[in-house]
């Protein structure tokens, strides 16, 4: 289940978080509005001791934090997991200011290219490094990015559920042409990918 559905994992978790945080914002807004308007209608009175209410409220906060942490950690474990038997391997190299992807599958390897070609639905094991400064490989379509370091390799699995062409970009400032350091991910169906690999591979 390595790198399983990063997009799916993000979308589900993000929806949950947006619901929770929006609810919290509404509660805060409501509480502030009521607190501010209350005094205008009545004179101030020494209120009863709110410490029990505050304690209960802290309890709610602890529960909320725990729940958020729990779903986050579980989701992360799934997303970060790496398959022992990926379908496709990609060696990704970032440089100032271009990308290089070398795709291989079952002994066949394509020549390094500036764009990334992968098959739909397969587990793609990526090794990522840089030749100079820190870069970051971001594919918004699958909601994932990783730093590329010059002195170590990052490994992660990705899965691309839909065919099509998607943008990829560098997400860590790396100098003059950082904003144009982009690439395209072409996700092909099984037959298209086999054909592509046959044509470009060795």
């Amino acid at each position: 289940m390595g790198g399983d559905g990063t997009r799916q994992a993000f979308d589900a978790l993000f929806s949950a978080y947006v619901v929770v945080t929006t609810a919290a914002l509404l509660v805060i807004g409501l509480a502030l509005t009521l607190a501010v308007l209350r005094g205008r209608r009545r004179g101030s009175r020494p209120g009863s001791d709110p410490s029990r209410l505050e304690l209960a409220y802290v309890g709610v906060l602890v529960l909320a934090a725990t729940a958020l942490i729990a779903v986050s950690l579980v989701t992360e474990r799934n997303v970060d997991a790496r398959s022992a038997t990926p379908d496709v391997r990609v060696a990704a190299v970032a440089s100032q200011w271009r990308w290089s992807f070398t795709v291989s599958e079952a002994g066949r390897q394509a020549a390094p290219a500036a764009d990334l070609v992968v098959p739909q639905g397969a587990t793609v094991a990526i090794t990522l490094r840089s030749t100079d400064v820190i870069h970051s490989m971001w594919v918004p379509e699958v909601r994932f990015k990783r730093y590329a370091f010059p002195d170590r390799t990052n490994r992660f699995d990705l899965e691309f559920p839909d065919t099509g062409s998607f943008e990829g970009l560098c997400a860590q400032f790396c100098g003059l042409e950082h904003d144009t350091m982009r690439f395209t991910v072409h996700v092909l169906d099984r037959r298209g990918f086999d054909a592509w690999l046959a044509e470009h591979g060795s």
Partner: protein
Amino acid sequence: MTVAVLPGRGVIGWAVAADHKSVAARVAAAAGIFMVLGGAVSLVMRAELAHSGMQVTFRDTYNELFTPHGTTMVYLVMVPLALALGAYLVPLQIGAAELVAPRVNLFASWLLVLGGLSIYGGFMTAHGAARNGWTEFLPLSGESFSPGPGTDMWVIGVALADAAAILLAATILLTILTRRAPGMTMLRLPVFTWTVLVTCLLTLFGFPALEAALGLIEAQRHFGADIDPVAYLHLFWFFGHPAVYVMFFPFLGAVAEVVQVFSGARLVGYRALVLALLGFATGSMTVWAHHMFTTGQVLNEYFAITSTSLLIFAGVEYFDLTATLWRGVVRFSVPMLFALAFLAQFAIGGLTGVIVASPVLDYHLNDSYFVVGHFHYTLFAGSMFALFAGVYYWFPKVTGRFLSERLGRAHFWLLVVGTNVTFFPMFALGYLGMTRRVADYPERASLDWLNAVSSAGAAITGLAMLVFFWNLAVSLAAGRAAGDDPWGGHTLEWATSSPPPRHNFDRLPPIRSFAPLLDLREQRR
């Protein structure tokens, strides 16, 4: 008892005055000038980003803009203002005549100014100023990738400014510990002073890591040392995260004071708030690697736990401030307007922070405009609004004059509209795949109109700030006179003249709680 030694003023006198009020005023004035520079730069940035394509600047120039923008706002504006607020007010709030080691504070104030000059001096060099962000990660900030003295001048400037902050924090902390007036126990310190106390802790024990990180840059640039980029990241962010809380706590403290005074109520849950502040400060030191979630080099789980847990402490603070508003009758003067807006807007910033505290969410949102929106909501729509609450509240004490209430309202409303219109679209931009620190972005309808809206908001924000500086100028010259205690304050600074004399107090009222003047008033009723 304190004996003043020398008389004499004039320009030289003003420059070498060591008393805490002069030091604070000097630092605040310098920060104000830097704020104008850093803000002007951001307006050029937003003009460039309004539409896809390069219309206003060259790529190189743009990078030389966003770098001083962030650099200025962090090292030369918000951190110094946080400490200047403390330097001015802490002795007054605790009934002391002066800060510990005035000459150290004088020394620090000039380190800050000289540091700022060094950073901006980079613009006058052949290769130009530093241009790799306020973070200047290695290896990019190394000699081969960033040749020329601009980066070195940046490193020196930041190192001086950082040292200045550490020194000021040390003297302010020592003052709180040793110079409290009789009767002022730690648990009778005003809330603002408590927020300054934790700010000093973060500065003292978090900021030295920046000096180490800067040392790594110079080791690479001058001695060709091979530096582990992850080492730099750790050292930088170990400083960088406490830094953002340094740029938050004193301003939160200002809001806490304003909320109490302008609702006429004593703070609800003082002890809980103090505990929450201390817990929040501890937490602030343990979360830094959430800036490194996408590096694959840190234990994401641990930092996700510590980062998300911060909401507990923030929640307690919100509870106590809201309960205080509830208990009192709210007066909608300008300080209270800014305080209320802070509470609403900082919530947006904080809650989006909870979102990016989740590693998987951060995998998409890190280094995107979502994060830019998040930290501008906390630091601008949050901390800076809180700063203005404090400025409009304490200006009469410092100068003996009121800021114009009418201009203050104009400033407030323009700023509310401006900041929200500028920064809210950024959440969408980030989600849609726009990365940060880019001079340009691909031509796409969604990116284009969101950026255009954001840039329009920036123009309104700029206008709001012009109104503020106009208010400042006009009020300094001819503002309505204010007495000792124009607002009905609760804390000791209102028990002396406006402005206070050199030794702060002729006489102190009895201190039996964290709101001594409120006690006196209630007693007299």
